[in-house]
């Protein structure tokens, strides 16, 4: 059984990674976040903050402001990658349905739960590998723009990345299981890829959205993933900025850049974000398990003509 699961995970992962287009499209959203930041969002954010500081009569914090904005952009890149990589990796599930590989699995003595478990593990593994590479690139960027992370925060980022990937993989494998055609999957992929950057506040801080929209984003697990990344990757740069400016100014920025959330009047801090993310991961994995136990019963009834 273990060998069967291992071979299936290996197969799903190989099929995803061998297609270079898959990797490109999986990383397209994070690349767009990066591209937009380099082209204009970065300058907009930096200029806006420097303007506010000059109005307060504070100058000489250009490097800290840039590091702060850079780390905000990198949290968006990371949070995006943790969703879009698993999403693209789910494409193997649809290809298998279209090519009749699902029929081959049904005709083979493979336990009903195994294909879904293998899809989940492969999607999560692909997410962890590629998001891990993106995280390394983010660390290199931070090292050049002004390193301010503690060892604990580095491990925190790695943990958040794994937790985010597990949560999004659970949700996406669950959703993809209900899709039947490549067209439907492409549609979901396009909508998700486009909307995800806005929902998690990668293109602009969630604090700039109207209150109603801000509340909507709170029901999306990626928001908590992005919030947690911000608390870990931006904390050091925020502290450095506080040294050059005022604690009050930075506190305002933390809210504006969604390092804490307002959940209908309650303030959500990093620890709560980590709990929400872990709970969503567990719930989605449990839902997948429930489905694998419901489906064989349905199948058995079908085989008996009931």
């Amino acid at each position, binding site marked *: 059984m273990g*060998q*069967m699961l*291992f*071979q*299936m995970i*290996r*197969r799903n992962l*190989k*099929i995803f990674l*061998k*297609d270079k287009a898959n990797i490109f499209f999986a990383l397209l959203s994070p690349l767009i976040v990066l591209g937009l930041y380099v082209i204009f969002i970065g300058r907009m954010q930096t200029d806006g903050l420097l303007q506010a500081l000059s109005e307060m009569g504070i100058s000489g914090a250009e490097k800290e402001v840039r590091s702060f904005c850079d780390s905000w952009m990198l949290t968006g890149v990371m949070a995006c990658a943790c969703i879009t990589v698993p999403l693209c990796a789910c494409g193997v599930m649809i290809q298998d349905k279209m*090519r*009749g*590989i699902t*029929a*081959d*699995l*049904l*005709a*083979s*003595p*493979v336990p009903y739960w195994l294909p879904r478990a293998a899809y989940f593990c492969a999607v999560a593994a692909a997410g962890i590998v590629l998001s891990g590479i993106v995280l390394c690139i983010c660390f290199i960027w931070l090292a050049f723009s002004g390193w301010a992370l503690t060892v604990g925060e580095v491990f925190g980022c790695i943990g958040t990345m794994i937790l985010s990937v597990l949560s999004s993989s659970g949700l996406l494998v669950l959703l993809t299981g209900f899709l039947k055609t490549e067209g439907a999957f492409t549609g979901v992929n396009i909508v998700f890829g486009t909307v995800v950057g806005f929902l998690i506040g990668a293109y602009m801080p969630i604090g700039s959205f109207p209150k109603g929209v801000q509340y909507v984003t709170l029901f999306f697990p990626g928001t908590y993933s992005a919030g947690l990344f911000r608390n870990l990757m931006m904390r050091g740069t925020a502290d450095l900025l506080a040294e050059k400016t005022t604690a009050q100014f930075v506190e305002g920025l933390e809210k504006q850049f969604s390092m804490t959330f307002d959940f209908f009047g309650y303030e959500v801090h990093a620890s709560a974000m980590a709990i929400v993310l872990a709970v969503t991961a567990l719930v989605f994995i449990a839902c997948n398990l429930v489905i694998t136990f419901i489906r064989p019963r349905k*199948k058995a*009834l*079908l*085989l*008996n*003509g009931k």
Partner: protein
Amino acid sequence: MKESILTVENLYKSYGKVAAVQGVSFSVEKGSLFSFLGVNGAGKSTTINIICSILGKDSGKIYVDGLDLDTQSEKIKPLIGVVFQNSVLDNLLTVKDNLTIRASFYGINGKAWQKRLGELSELLDLKEILNRPFGRLSGGQRRRADIARGLINSPRLLILDEPTTGLDPQTRLSVWNTVKDLQQKTEMTVFLTTHYMEEADSSDRVVIIDGGKIAAEDTPVNLKNKYSKNYLYLYGENICERLKDIRLPFENAKGGARIVMQTAEETKKFLKEHSELCTDFEYMKGNMDDVFLSVTGKKAEGGI
């Protein structure tokens, strides 16, 4: 009569209002080459998908090697090998990787798998293509790899769903020869669905399915005797005029005349009685095309 490896009793399956299979019953003898013959949409693939536990049935019973599909499908699966009409191997992976993954489904790993891979490689001449990506193989090579996938678990019953459809005539012939060789070498039961008459003609037993119902069932020879005509072709100078003179019914054929003969005995008698007309002749038994046309009223598809 030999023991049956597969018994299908009164099988029904509908897709909404479309009745795909309507009360099909048949059995397949152990070690035989069995053909399920019918045009596209006749109900062949639906029947085998039910046998392979891919589709549910509406009613009826199926037994594989004495095991009831309703209650023992998990025990039946390791006894069956399937070669699907469309390949189910992964284009980006090598043939070896593809087969190794599928071998794990049957608990065949490590040294046992290396041994089995060697056997399959020899049986189907896979050595040259084992390390090549499946997607880069030719049609015939792909089919050989597909057949190897079906044989991984040394099945007692190998089901081939239209294995030669979509292949060029030369490749079709080569794949068909591979299937026949395999059946002869391994004495495995081969259950074949096809719409090519030549393939059905080489089988031990043929079931013709039409509109979801069995239209005829027997050995190819018996089917031809029952449903087709035999022809005696006579060639020679003015043969048609000479036949007209003795008032024998005939049809014009290329370069001669064709006379319908009911039996071989009748032909022998004719040859004796009209030896002067039979200086150059050809006797041809009816083929499966005639049988199919006579049984279903539909023209057979394809031809090698």
